[in-house]
């Protein structure tokens, strides 16, 4: 390594594509620089990271749509000149420049990278029939075999879809509470991480529950059969955006990184790495060229669900209220 080599600091989840060998090596070679990853293990931590001492240290950060709004409002990330990105045009239009990533002046703060869903995963063999509705979670026949994602937002949204709320983000909390209490009776456990779903699921302790699409992909790829379906009531979805940290000294490199992450080469490679929990690539060209097997593995082979509720920024009070509600449900004996 030469003395004048520059270092690009990237913040992301661990094992989420960007830290794979091919991603890092190719970029380093092409740009004669070094790439260092900083991992966060929650999006709150991601925010705190940039807030405290992250400025000037972290150059690029991957953020969930729901959190770019906060980051943007707090001035933690800077606007991106999308015209300088070669691959921006190829990205899925519906994900670009949505409310949470642009400001009043129309400046763009996040470049879509991947998206995925939280739908219903189940063990077809154990359940013995096809499932197409969230109501299966509430079905007494599945008592003791159900799990729920231990996340107040997912929990509220799923419950809202189950009871048929028009706008899940403004649902009637008392009804939600009722539904979640009912669900608790059926639930064996609440899962918190990939492992805490995968282990009991593969051991047969549980047979169904809300699941990340990437998690389902990885499970299938490692030999554990799981059906992943989009329930008719709707599906929670999330999008991850690349953002540039305010005050970075490596703006050029950061832009190149974002471009590289959006590129066909990279996205295609990552999408085919089925054991790496790959979500759906935002690059349309990649989406089109994916093999049928991969499309199937990513659950984008058939019709996409009509009702796709993207996780978006919610006000602080709502967040606290949902959390309190979820804690109350969990605490109930």
């Amino acid at each position, binding site marked *: 390594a030469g003395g004048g080599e520059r270092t690009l600091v990237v*913040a992301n*989840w*661990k*094992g*989420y594509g960007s830290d794979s060998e091919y991603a890092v090596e190719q970029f380093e070679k092409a740009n004669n620089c070094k790439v*260092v*990853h*900083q*991992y*966060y*293990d929650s999006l709150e*931590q991601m925010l705190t*990271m940039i807030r*405290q*001492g*992250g400025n000037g240290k*972290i150059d690029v950060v991957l953020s969930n749509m729901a959190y770019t709004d906060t980051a943007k409002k707090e001035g933690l990330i800077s606007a991106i000149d999308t015209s300088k990105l070669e691959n921006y045009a190829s990205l899925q239009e519906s994900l670009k420049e949505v409310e949470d990533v642009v400001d009043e002046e129309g400046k763009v703060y996040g470049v879509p990278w991947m998206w995925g869903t939280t739908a219903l995963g189940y063990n077809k063999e154990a359940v013995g029939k096809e499932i197409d509705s969230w109501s299966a979670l509430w079905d007494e026949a599945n008592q003791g075999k159900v799990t729920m994602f231990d996340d107040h937002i997912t929990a509220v949204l799923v419950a809202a879809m189950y009871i048929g709320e028009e706008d899940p983000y403004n649902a009637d909390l008392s009804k939600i509470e009722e539904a979640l209490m009912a669900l608790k009776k059926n639930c064996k456990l609440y899962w918190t*991480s*990939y*492992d*805490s779903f*995968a*282990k009991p699921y*593969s*051991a047969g302790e549980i047979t169904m529950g809300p699941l990340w699409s990437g998690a389902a992909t*990885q499970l299938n790829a*490692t030999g*554990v059969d799981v059906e992943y379906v989009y329930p008719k009531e709707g599906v929670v979805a999330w999008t991850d955006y690349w953002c540039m940290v305010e005050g970075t000294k490596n703006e050029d490199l950061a832009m190149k990184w974002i471009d590289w992450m959006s590129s066909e080469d990279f996205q295609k490679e990552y999408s085919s790495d089925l054991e790496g*929990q790959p979500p759906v690539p935002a690059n349309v060209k990649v989406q089109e060229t994916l093999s049928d097997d991969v499309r199937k593995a990513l659950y984008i082979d058939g019709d996409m669900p009509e009702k796709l509720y993207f996780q978006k920024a919610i006000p602080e009070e709502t967040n606290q209220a949902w959390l309190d509600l979820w804690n109350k449900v969990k605490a109930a004996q």
Partner: protein
Amino acid sequence: MKKKYPWVRAIMILVYAFMFLPIGIVILMSFNASPYGTFPFEFTTKWYELLFSGGDLGQATALSLIFSLLVALAAVLIGLLTAQGMRRIGKRKAAVFSQLLNSAIIVPWLVLGIAMLILFNMTGLGRSYLGMFLGNTVVVLPYVVLLVYPALLEQKPNAESAARTLGASPLRVFWTVTLPGILPAVAAGGLMALMVCFNNFVIQYYLAPFGVRTLPLEIYNLVRVGYKPDINALASIMVVVSVGLVLLVSRLGFGKKKGLFW
């Protein structure tokens, strides 16, 4: 005296089995092909290959070991000073001080970790190596003192005075007489500190600088993406090495000196 208390012996065997059963599982799983620890068992060594093909796990282990060693070292040094000071101020005042140490043990790490983070953020120290080091040290310090202080009190009387009459300065007395006399307790304290720090997820979770991953944090991260049994392989190696060390040490007869612990 043999064969007295058969039920006590039975419970001992049971408890030791209980303590090493999960270890057995870890070792078993490190040779099991299934990444989720499910049966049927299928023998493989691929996790060991994966482990030795490099990667973050090795780095995290090295970091944790070095960090815990440093923390244990600092805790032993400060603990020695503290214990010596406690002995000098007399039993009654020392009792008050050990209450203070106790309180550092009983405050749950969760609460303490958060409270320290708030303090560090206020003082501008924030998440940093220094903060993580201080936090872990203060958490293990009481274990060291509570082991070393009684040993100091039980020191063979007069040996220190004897050394003085032979011309040794107080400092020299400490190094050549006091310290060797309490070495088993100091070793026990250091070991305890090492273990507690090596395993301390909570404090490190709150105080580690961003991007710095000690072994507990690394495993915590891995759990989110799905950890592979290469951790089991790592743990198996560590346990086998430490059990081997213990047995070796006892063979060599260091353990014979009454009570390596307490």
